């Protein structure tokens, strides 16, 4: 290609030919479904002209040519024949030279030499048609150098009669590895004020002036691409881009690759897993969920708590999805490590404000976590060796460039360590977990893509020497993406999740037992997308989910046990939903998203449902009857509309306001009267006696980018009201309770807050600071005294922590050394204290305060980490970096829990447990191959 161009240029410059003398020669010719090559051969024989060309150009032209021409000049004939091709021609002395895209000009334009005054001063299209474009004329300009960027892409065919000033160039931007279109990729034309970004299908459209255009494709997550286009006419041009495989970047937390100011959704946190590796974390583990909690509005009840509280919502109100399947327990080790393998996870989108209509089933948030695809080109992987866990993941192509698998596994080696310790107590302890994930991806063709994920995690630990706790998550997900046409796309998703736990209580007395719980759910989901026009994008879909719960069994393990085996009756239900949403671009400034979801829940038999006396509280003592339902018989149904509205308005390009109104419904509830979520909490379905929860949230946010997007500031506020929030009666006992509804209260929740986030994405110093002021209150004001808590007034929920400040800051000294710090301050969470004793009926009782009247001490923690990267030689077996971090540098004794025990003398005593009361150093080695 390059040589030909040079040859042409030489031809052009030695401009002393006689032109077109023989082109007036008239010929008659007829073609019938002939290939271009045979047409040229025909013309060669008929006209005695010799053709010069590169055969690949001709072969690339597949259309067959038909036509009957009589008495036509060669000029006219070639014009007609080559009309639909990218080929131009010039007739020189019985020779016909074909050129690709470019025209060979027979004379230089008048203003070719800069010092020559232009003959005409005309502007506009007239001008451009008169001045042909030479792509190397920019040689002398600084903006472009042929030596640097060798290849030029030609768009369209040069046409001397070109009349337009701008041409439309469009195409798809795809990920080279996965072949998937990349949305929201920013494209800019160098030195021109032209830019755009790709739509969800990766499609972009640019209006480019005729001639050389240098386009730059920039994205935080991808390698920059610069392409030089020679634009002659409208045309298309696809670009493949690569993800930044270099994991040596500064922390980059970005919101959907798009500027926060731009999206319609408020309250969305997107975490790119690649970006979080520098944050100092506990025992050197990278942890996507821990990072999430450094953002405003996402909290945990305490260190080592398995659940999240998003905007004042309970732990069970978060829909945690791993490749579309629900992950019931996202934590290992009671919450010290997340169950998400950081090396296989790609990113997490956390919706805490507006929740798109395709998600449903939980009140407060959606954690949408996606897994990477394996590298379809070559075997590659990464891993880490840390003090508690080791981690390895690798991707393997199956069919090169098309399908691949990704495998990730992680395990602890704490057991081995514990066993080798001298301490008797520790020797008999057990603690360990492992998880594994397998993802298959097949880009079958342009219109079909298949993905499948299998995941399993397992934990076991013993707190006391006589009980062994085990729990596991298992999930499977299959997704088939299909593009029907340019406007219609769809995805069919099947998922199955199982969570179970088991307690082996093996004490010395004969009443050892085995206790277990299991939840299983399967969902089939169809998601459709319809691009109605430039203004409207419609999404719609349907989903249906079947639940099966074994709420608990307790079986004695000793045949002589006096303990009676208990089996609580199974629960079954079907939850379905329909949704429709329209993203409507009213103007360049105003974008709205109107979503509507309808969810429907049916509790199914086989079941024995307690009927309670009318007008009396649910109580073991008010059961008047038990109604029996057959298998799959509908016991009770619930349903309702869930509107989801969001709007964004630009005050300026880098300053926007967003508002949202969301309603959500939830039919499954976590029963947990521990203050923190624990693996032994059980999920309970709504039924005749337990109503579904619902919530409404309004949110408003202001978003501003400063200093060319260097800083991002957002201020978001929300107010949320919820109904039928589950709580527990005083003295409630939840596990193995056949009439568990008698222990439950359903009350109103109220949460509000202001969240301020300042982010700096680039530069030597980067990171973010978030501050939240929020309250989370609950009111349990039933009709009856036993259904009232704190006299039926609003009181602070278990996770009400008004002040929350977190700062994650990184400083990069050199390319290889960086320091990162993580600071956290939170108000201590509320607690119910024993406040005295009293005597009643001859026995002594402990007097407890009003529910959650007191608070445990504030939580303060500082972590520091240093990252040392290996050298940056390209040819190396493995790229590596070291992470040395110290958790809780201040050594503050943050309480994990406060509990009360009665000592031998019958006195109640408070005990405070801290998990990490001293600074905990760790070192991790990470590698990538």
């Amino acid at each position: 290609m390059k040589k030909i161009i040079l040859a042409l240029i030489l031809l052009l410059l030695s401009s002393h030919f006689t032109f077109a003398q023989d082109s007036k020669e008239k010929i008659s010719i007829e073609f019938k479904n002939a290939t271009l090559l045979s047409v040229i051969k025909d013309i060669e024989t008929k006209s005695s002209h010799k053709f010069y060309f590169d055969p690949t150009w001709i072969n690339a032209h597949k259309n067959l040519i038909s036509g009957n021409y009589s008495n036509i000049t060669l000029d006219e004939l070639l014009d007609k024949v080559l009309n639909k091709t990218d080929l131009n021609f010039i007739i020189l002395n019985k020779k016909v030279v074909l050129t690709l895209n470019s025209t060979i000009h027979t004379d230089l334009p008048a203003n070719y030499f800069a010092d020559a005054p232009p003959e005409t001063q005309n502007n506009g299209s007239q001008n451009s048609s008169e001045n042909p474009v030479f792509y190397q004329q920019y040689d002398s300009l600084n903006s472009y150098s042929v030596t640097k960027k060798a290849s030029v892409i030609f768009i369209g065919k040069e046409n001397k009669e070109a009349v337009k000033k701008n041409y439309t160039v469009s195409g798809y931007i795809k990920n080279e590895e996965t072949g998937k279109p990349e949305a929201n990729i920013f494209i800019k034309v160098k030195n021109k004020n032209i830019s755009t970004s790709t739509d969800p299908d990766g499609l972009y459209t640019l209006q480019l002036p005729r001639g050389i255009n240098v386009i730059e494709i920039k994205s935080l997550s991808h390698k920059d691409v610069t392409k030089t286009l020679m634009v002659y006419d409208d045309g298309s041009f696809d670009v493949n881009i690569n993800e930044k495989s270099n994991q040596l970047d500064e922390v980059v937390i970005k919101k959907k690759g798009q500027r926060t100011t731009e999206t319609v959704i408020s309250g969305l946190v997107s975490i790119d897993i690649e970006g979080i590796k520098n944050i100092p974390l506990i025992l050197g583990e990278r942890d996507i969920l821990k990072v999430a909690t450094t953002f405003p509005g996402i909290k945990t009840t305490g260190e080592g708590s398995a659940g999240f509280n998003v905007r004042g919502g309970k732990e069970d109100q978060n829909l945690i999805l791993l490749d579309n399947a629900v992950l019931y327990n996202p934590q290992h080790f009671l919450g010290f490590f997340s169950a998400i393998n950081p090396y296989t996870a790609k990113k997490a989108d956390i919706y805490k404000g507006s929740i798109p209509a395709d998600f449903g089933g939980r009140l407060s948030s959606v954690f949408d976590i996606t897994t990477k695809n394996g590298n379809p080109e070559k075997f590659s992987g990464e891993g880490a060796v840390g003090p508690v866990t080791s981690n390895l993941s690798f991707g393997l192509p199956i069919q090169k460039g098309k399908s691949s698998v990704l495998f990730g596994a992680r395990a602890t080696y704490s057991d081995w360590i514990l066993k080798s310790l001298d301490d008797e107590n520790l020797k008999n302890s057990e603690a360990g977990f492992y998880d594994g994930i397998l993802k298959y991806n097949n880009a079958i063709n342009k219109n079909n893509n298949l993905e499948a994920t299998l995941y399993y995690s397992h934990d076991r630990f013993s707190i006391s020497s006589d009980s062994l706790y085990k729990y596991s998550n298992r999930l499977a997900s299959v997704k088939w993406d299909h593009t029907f046409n340019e406007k219609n796309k769809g995805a069919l998703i099947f998922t199955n999740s199982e969570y179970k736990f088991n307690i082996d209580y093996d004490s010395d007395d004969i009443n050892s037992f085995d206790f277990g719980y299991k939840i299983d759910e399967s969902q089939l989901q169809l998601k459709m997308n319809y691009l109605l026009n430039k203004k409207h994008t419609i999404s719609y879909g349907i989903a249906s989910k079947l639940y099966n719960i074994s709420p608990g069994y307790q079986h004695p393990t000793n045949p002589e046990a006096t303990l009676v085996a208990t089996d609580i009756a199974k629960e079954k239900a079907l939850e379905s939903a329909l949704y429709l949403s329209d993203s409507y671009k009213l103007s360049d400034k105003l974008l709205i998203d109107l979503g509507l979801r309808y969810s429907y829940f049916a509790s199914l038999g086989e079941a024995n449902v307690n009927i309670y006396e009318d007008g009396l509280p649910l109580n073991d003592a008010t059961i008047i009857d038990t109604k029996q339902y057959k298998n799959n018989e509908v016991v009770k149904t619930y349903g309702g509309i869930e509107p989801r509205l969001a709007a964004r308005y630009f005050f300026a390009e880098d300053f926007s306001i967003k508002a949202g109104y969301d309603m959500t419904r939830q039919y499954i509830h976590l029963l947990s009267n521990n203050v923190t979520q624990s693996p032994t909490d059980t999920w309970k379905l709504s039924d005749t006696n337990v109503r579904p929860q619902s919530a409404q949230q309004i949110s408003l946010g202001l978003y501003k980018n400063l200093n060319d997007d260097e800083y991002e500031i957002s201020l978001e506020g929300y107010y949320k009201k919820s109904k039928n929030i589950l709580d527990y009666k005083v003295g409630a006992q939840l596990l193995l309770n056949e009439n568990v509804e008698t222990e439950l209260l359903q009350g109103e929740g109220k949460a509000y807050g202001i969240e301020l986030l300042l982010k700096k994405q680039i530069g030597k110093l980067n990171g973010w600071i978030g501050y939240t002021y929020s309250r989370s209150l609950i009111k349990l004001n039933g009709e009856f005294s036993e259904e009232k808590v704190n006299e039926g007034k609003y009181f602070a929920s278990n996770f009400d922590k008004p002040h929350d400040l977190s700062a994650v800051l990184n400083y990069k000294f050199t390319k290889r050394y960086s320091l990162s710090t993580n600071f956290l301050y939170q108000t201590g969470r509320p607690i119910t204290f024993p406040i005295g004793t009293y005597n009643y009926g001859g026995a002594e009782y402990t007097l407890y305060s009003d529910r959650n009247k007191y608070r445990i001490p504030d939580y303060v923690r500082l972590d520091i980490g240093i990252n040392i990267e290996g050298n940056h030689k390209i040819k190396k077996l493995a790229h590596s970096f070291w992470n040395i971090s110290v958790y809780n540098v201040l050594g503050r004794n943050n309480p994990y829990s406060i509990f009360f025990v009665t000592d031998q003398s019958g006195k109640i005593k408070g005990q405070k447990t801290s998990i990490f009361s001293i600074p905990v150093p760790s070192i991790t080695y990470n590698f990538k191959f």
Partner: protein
Amino acid sequence: MDSKIMKTLILNKITLLLLLVFMLNSCTETYVLQSNTYEEALVVEATITNELKKHEIKLSKTARLEDDGIAIEIGASVVVKSNAGEIFSFEEKDGIYIAESAFRAEPNKIYSLEIKTKDGKVYQSNEQTLTTPNEIESIVPTVVTDSKEGRGVQIKVNSYDPTNTSKYYRYEYDETYKIIAPKWRGEKLVVTGPQSVALEPNSTDTRICYATKTSNEILLTNTTNLQEDRVNYQVRFISDQNYIITHRYSILVKQYVQNLESYTFRKTMKEISSSASVLSPKQPGFLDGNIKCISNSSEKAIGFFEVSSFSSKRIFFNYKDLFPGEPIPPYYTDCTDEEYKYCFGFSMPIPCRGKALIDNISANTVTYSYNIESSYYYTVPVECGDCTSFSSNIKPSFWID
């Protein structure tokens, strides 16, 4: 894996060892909660019934966690009012408020309790009516083998409400049992001088005693899920190894028919105090009754003013009737003889214990069992030879032999 990683692995193992020690030795320390959280509250135990008597009401105060004992609320004015205009006043006597005159709660009247404490706080209960009168039909002791507690006497109460409106029942019991000191002897040892003892005829008053214990657990049952309002409830289970049934045993079962509110109050009180299981702790919180401080809404009161229909029944049984031919249960304390070599000063190989004998007899911690002339005396703990050391030798008025 390259050698670098291997090296790291080894290094990390060392780090790990250190770390896990920190991790698992997570620290637990005493958390001081006494000083700042104490709230004083009035505790009210007030049950009036359809029994004609001087009803009693108990007022006490909550105590600090670190304090022993309960403070009685004295000097309060306590009245029970009915909607018929009756006012029953209570006066304090030894920390208990006793009705000035006997009265009974009557059906179809609405009662409420009012308390004005010495420092001017006014408490009021909500309105209560008498629950359905319902007599105990029978109390039946049976020998059973319980899966949890083994073999013993199960005492069940039966009652029946044909109107099907009683539904919620609370029970209390007083149990009285005859005690015969197993090592009572016709003679007793008395100290006659610093180094002299003598045998005297023993009083028969110390051989047979009666002890009475009142239940303090909360005993509740309901009949809501039954076709008929028929109670068949175990109020007491006594193991066949429990000495209290050795001879003759009597139980007075008191039945209080509750309403749902008072039933739930006691049930919650019971649940809060029962020990949490391995699996899950109880939800703690303040226990709300039906008595409120109306002079200051932030003052707390614990307790429930209940107006219950009352019924009681007493039964007796003998061990030999229920367990014919079986050996009697072991005594509650070990009655092995203890040997004293009766001499003073030094002796070998058996040391002199004359002084110890005199000290123990004087302190009344042992009783005489037998002797070998005056060189060896044998004693048993005082409980084995003298039942008045721990119970009363006065036969209760209700006792029928």
